[in-house]
């Protein structure tokens, strides 16, 4: 019997496991939730200087294999990440595990036909229509979930009853996964969108607003950023985050020329991975009067290291507060909290100062 598994990335394991289950007709068990143990195992077997997403993924793979999985799925990316599938496969084989390994994205492009034949290997009776239907269903699932997440990030810091948003999101994801029809899925989306907007909040008109930019894994996997968004929500801050799967899968490619145009003063060429995107986002966030920006990256993330001096320069010119976080295995969350608290104080003091200046003028 085949048991399929794959590493975690935020809540995306839900649509992904549905997709795998419905197309392959096999048992799908996503990796166990990320804990300190995951990163312990991951960093034990990973090369020391590799970036932290690799260590999380490797930890996920090993925990999955220990759980009985024998088919592993992984994606690819635009930076060193595109080579990570091969490296982790070699490490896992050297550790003596026996498994089949599938890459969804090879050579930077998502090729529908290739993926279809890949799935046909796993499930010879798979019809193209079923495959295509489920692919569309998954795309809509991710799209709807990302749109709901945007609403949540706007309001979660101000909810009147604690955990209202979390509970409703859990309920929504459960109901999403019980349907198979794309039409019903989208109807459900509108129903929940309405419900999310009705959650009681007490949001002041002039609340603090912070934008999160940076490398994609640390932005999307809450464990890897030490639950940065949760901490910000506790401080009653509205959060804006551009990076999500819908952005990476289809928005990014047609945004490129526009981003280059907007950031033409600072970059002439894309910086690799999300480097240019983050320069563009910095400009946008400042234009939209966000109070501050938080940039996250794994320690040693090369595309972001290239983008940071440019972002710093823009922020210096426009006097925008920015906070940089560089995550690695040993970063204690106490230090992160201290910096976040100080950042919060800084934003508040600036706000007060500007308000006073405006009322004086």
């Amino acid at each position, binding site marked *: 019997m085949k048991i399929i598994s794959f590493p975690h990335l935020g809540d995306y394991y839900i649509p992904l496991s549905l997709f795998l289950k419905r197309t392959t007709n096999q048992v799908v068990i996503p990796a166990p939730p990320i804990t300190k143990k995951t990163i312990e195992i991951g960093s034990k077997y990973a090369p020391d200087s590799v970036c932290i997403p690799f260590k999380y993924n490797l930890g996920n793979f090993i925990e999955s294999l220990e759980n009985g999985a024998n088919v592993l799925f992984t994606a690819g990316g635009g930076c060193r990440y595109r080579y990570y599938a091969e490296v982790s496969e070699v490490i896992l084989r050297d550790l003596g595990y026996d498994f089949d390994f599938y890459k969804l994205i090879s050579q930077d492009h998502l090729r529908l036909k290739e993926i279809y034949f890949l799935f046909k290997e796993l499930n010879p009776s798979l019809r193209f229509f079923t495959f295509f239907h489920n692919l569309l269903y998954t795309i809509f699932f991710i799209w709807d979930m990302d749109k709901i997440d945007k609403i949540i990030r706007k309001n979660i810091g101000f909810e009147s009853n604690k955990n209202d948003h979390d509970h409703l999101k859990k309920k929504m994801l459960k109901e999403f996964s019980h349907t198979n029809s794309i039409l019903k899925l989208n109807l459900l989306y509108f129903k929940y969108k309405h419900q999310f907007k009705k959650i009681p909040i007490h949001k002041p008109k002039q609340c603090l607003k912070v934008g999160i930019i940076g490398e994609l894994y640390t932005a999307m996997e809450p464990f890897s950023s030490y639950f940065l968004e949760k901490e910000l929500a506790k401080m009653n801050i509205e959060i804006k985050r551009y990076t999500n799967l819908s952005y990476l899968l289809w928005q990014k490619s047609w945004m490129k020329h526009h981003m280059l145009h907007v950031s033409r003063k600072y970059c002439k060429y894309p910086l690799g991975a999300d480097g240019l995107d983050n320069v563009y986002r910095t400009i946008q966030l400042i234009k939209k009067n966000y109070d501050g920006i938080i940039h996250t990256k794994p320690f040693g993330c090369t595309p972001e290291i290239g983008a940071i001096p440019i972002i710093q320069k823009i922020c210096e010119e426009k*006097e925008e507060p920015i906070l940089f976080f560089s995550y690695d295995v040993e970063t204690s969350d106490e230090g992160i909290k201290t910096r976040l608290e100080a950042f919060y104080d800084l934003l508040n003091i600036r706000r007060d100062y500007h308000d006073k200046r405006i009322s004086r003028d």
Partner: protein
Amino acid sequence: MTKGYLGIDIGSISTKGVIIDRENHILASCYLWTEGNPIRAVKKVLKRLQKQIEKEDVQVVSVGTTGSARKLIGTILKASIIKNEITAHAIGTLSKYPNVKTIIEIGGQDSKIILIRDGIVIDYAMNTLCAAGTGSFLSSQAKRLGVEVEDFGNIALTSNNPALIAARCTVFAESDLVHKAQIGYQRNDIIAGLCRSVALNYLNNVAKGKKILEPIIFQGGVSKNIGVVDAFEKILNTKVITDENGHFMGALGVAILAQKEKEISFSFDVIQDDFQTTSIHCPHCPNHCEIICVNENGKLIDSWGNRCERGKVPAN
């Protein structure tokens, strides 16, 4: 009766406490080593502060804590405000030097830069990932060279030709130092080189890309080392101000912040209470959150460290 406001700054190496009045005058102050036991250090600080204000009629009406053990001590003293050290330092320094534009702070384990314009904090940075170029590095190297770290500054000033010591990373700095000593450099030249490398390391790592404008104030434990002050002045080519109360700025800042908080009844009797902390590894999932429980006279007063509700320790 004068109303007093107590501010305590519990750092990794030293613990500082001040009592101020409404006009920010320091009524009592105390500075001692934390020695890895913040609770004991704070009790000692409180004892000394109590002695200093014995003769005057001062009633402490509000308490603030800052520094790396701020949460633990804040819980024990039932503080009105618990603030991070960056804000506390900025507020404390601004109360004495309203025109300051740059604060350089190098402590035992961390170093930070705070940029201030028109009396408001506009930017800050703290050392990341490693404690290069901080006080603990200097004291460990002092031990290696067989001198007291307190004498470092005076020895450094006698050198005319500081040895060049790598400034990027303290591991390299250390091997550089050993190498320079072995090939026959004078000890004062090496020490002066070390002070220079601390200043350079700070400017390359923490203050990277920040505009350092005058007036500059240098504080934290390392600011007591005139060798490092001299190195900063030479590299930046400007005057660097150090304050004799520079090490109290964090405590002063949080005491000032405590003035605005609600008044509480604080009694020095807390010294007599028995505080115990225990750490539990939560057994509910493989994350094994480390939960810290604080007990006062055998009774649980607070606990933290759990990431979810399952790890919550019930109050008894």
